[in-house]
């Protein structure tokens, strides 16, 4: 108690120096929470969106399917297993057939991916019902990115050419029946959604699919080796990693800030032990042990950190609360990063983040506070009183 009292008295007595340390540390503290919250929000928003429109409660993949290798699409199709068929019957899964094709738009040739899906599916939050509208021509559903890049409007016709399972080329016009807004580029950029049955006919792949999306409420079951269940966590691993990489890039800034604050505290401590050695000698003469002096000096450093948390909370909390509530507009370039985020991103500032950051700041401050004071333990009080330091 006395140690705290004296340490507090000392750092408040030090005035400007203390407040400079506190200012830098509190800026680092708030910046860490602020930025981390943005990325946590990004991750959460992107994951939620992906789960809603594409990943569901996980996907069964035909064993050859590899989303990063579009040529795998030629091989990766198979009839659904009886178990998967049951899921589909019970509205607990929806099959999707993926294949490559070429679209001709005026004089442009656009490679596209076709995704066949039952128009009546209830699993994914996609306006696939629009694919029921057309009877004469193959209806196609696209997203705004695709519409923009291929300059397509509702009602437009688009010629596509594809190669069926036997290697025979064929071509047809599809009619754009609906353009959906989505934040998820995976289901939008260069993608045409078609009714599953029509697509199966085009490729002569009766009853076959590339993947099956499960609803979120159902437990996956074991199926034949032809299919593999990919849980949502695995599907989301990519986005998580991408966000993490961006977090690391952003963290360089605040790690630098924190470093600056720590250097300031360290410097104060080193100087204190050096400049205040006569005071140290005096305190020992007045009846303190060296251990107690070390405690006081270390605590002075640590109190810098505590004050920084306090001051940071004072000016940072309203700011962060405001951001979390009203979100922040995302610049266009974020879309190019391939992360599915809305136009506004709502940072997530959880107790874990705030507590974790506080602990990080406090532990690092404690370390740089303590290290320089260790030399007090072999400082002779008589030398200290003379202002000497050996």
């Amino acid at each position, binding site marked *: 108690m*006395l140690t705290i009292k004296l340490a507090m*008295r000392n750092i408040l007595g030090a005035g400007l120096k203390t407040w400079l340390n506190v200012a830098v540390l509190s800026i680092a503290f708030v910046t860490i929470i602020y930025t981390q919250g943005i990325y946590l929000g990004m991750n959460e928003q992107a994951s939620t969106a992906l789960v809603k429109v594409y990943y569901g409660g996980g996907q069964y993949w035909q064993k050859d399917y590899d989303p990063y290798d579009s040529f795998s699409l030629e091989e990766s199709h198979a009839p659904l297993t009886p178990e998967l068929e049951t899921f589909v019957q019970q509205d607990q899964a929806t099959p999707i057939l993926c294949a490559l094709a070429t679209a001709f738009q005026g004089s442009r040739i656009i490679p596209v991916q076709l995704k066949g899906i039952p128009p009546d599916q209830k699993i994914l939050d996609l306006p696939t019902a629009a694919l029921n509208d057309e009877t004469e021509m193959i209806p196609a559903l696209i997203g705004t990115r695709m519409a923009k890049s291929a300059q397509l409007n509702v009602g437009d016709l688009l010629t596509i050419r594809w190669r069926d399972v036997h290697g025979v080329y064929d071509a047809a016009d599809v009619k754009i029946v609906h353009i959906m807004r989505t934040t998820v580029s995976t289901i939008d950029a260069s993608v045409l959604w078609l009714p599953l049955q029509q697509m199966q006919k085009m490729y002569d792949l009766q009853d076959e699919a590339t993947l099956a999306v499960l609803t979120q409420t159902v437990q996956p079951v074991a199926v034949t080796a032809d299919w593999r269940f990919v849980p949502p966590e695995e599907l989301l691993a990519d986005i998580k990693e991408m966000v993490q990489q961006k977090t690391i890039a952003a963290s360089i800034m605040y790690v630098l800030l924190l470093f600056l604050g720590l250097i300031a505290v360290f410097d104060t401590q080193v100087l204190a032990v050096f400049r205040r050695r006569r005071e140290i000698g005096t305190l*020992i*003469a007045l009846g*303190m*042990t060296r251990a107690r002096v070390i405690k006081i000096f270390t605590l002075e450093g640590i109190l810098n950190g505590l004050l920084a948390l306090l001051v940071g909370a004072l000016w940072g909390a309203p700011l962060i609360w405001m951001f979390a509530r009203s979100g922040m507009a995302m610049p266009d370039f974020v879309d190019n990063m391939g992360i599915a985020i809305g136009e506004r991103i709502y940072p997530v500032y959880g107790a874990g983040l705030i507590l974790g950051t506080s602990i990080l700041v406090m532990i690092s401050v404690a370390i740089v506070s303590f290290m320089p004071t260790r030399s007090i333990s072999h400082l*002779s*009080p008589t030398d200290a009183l003379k202002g000497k330091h050996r």
Partner: protein
Amino acid sequence: MENQHFVKVRNVTKQYSMAEGQTLVALDDVNLTIARGEFAGVVGPSGSGKTTLLNLIGSLDQPSTGSIKVMGQHLESLNAKASAEFRNKHVGFIFQTYNLLTIYSVFENVELPLLLLGYSAAQRREAVMEALEWVGLADRAKSKPGQLSGGQNQRVAIARAIIKKPQLVLADEPTANLDTKNSNHILDIMAKINRELGVTFLFSTHDDKVISYLRRKITLHDGRVTTDEVIDAHH
């Protein structure tokens, strides 16, 4: 008996090892007893070992050989904690350079030893004001050391040394930085504290003003006690 051997220094030697394996003998076989209530001084030129001797008696340092007993306690047997407690309870230090904590007020400086002793706030306030009365600075309790003169600073240091009513005050060249008027002022104060409170004073000095107040003069030369005389002067 206990009063006669209030401080007992037996065959004390203090050596410092220097560069190239040489040793410097700061104290050389010193023997000394000081009785309770004395107003004594260790006198000698600079470098004769005065500060070293006072620091040993104050348990701030350990002798190389020999033993020191203060108030019945063998100082060499005290561990770090016990010697800190010994200083805290029984010894007041006064330094040539005052050694006040500059960011503390006069009140806070004087209060510090009592904080360590765990006195209550009310007890501390009363004792601080009483000690400041003794040195004539009760009206400067809120000042910072930087706002006071050297003489006033040394008076604050005296108040800090006597606040816990120690049995022994060790004053290392307390007047070295003061002019005659201030020197006499603080010496008057210390003589009065010695007379009225019975506190034992041991000075280190080569200042004639201090020497003129001493009732016993122990002369050190190159770490050896050369003379030890009782002075009967009454001024």
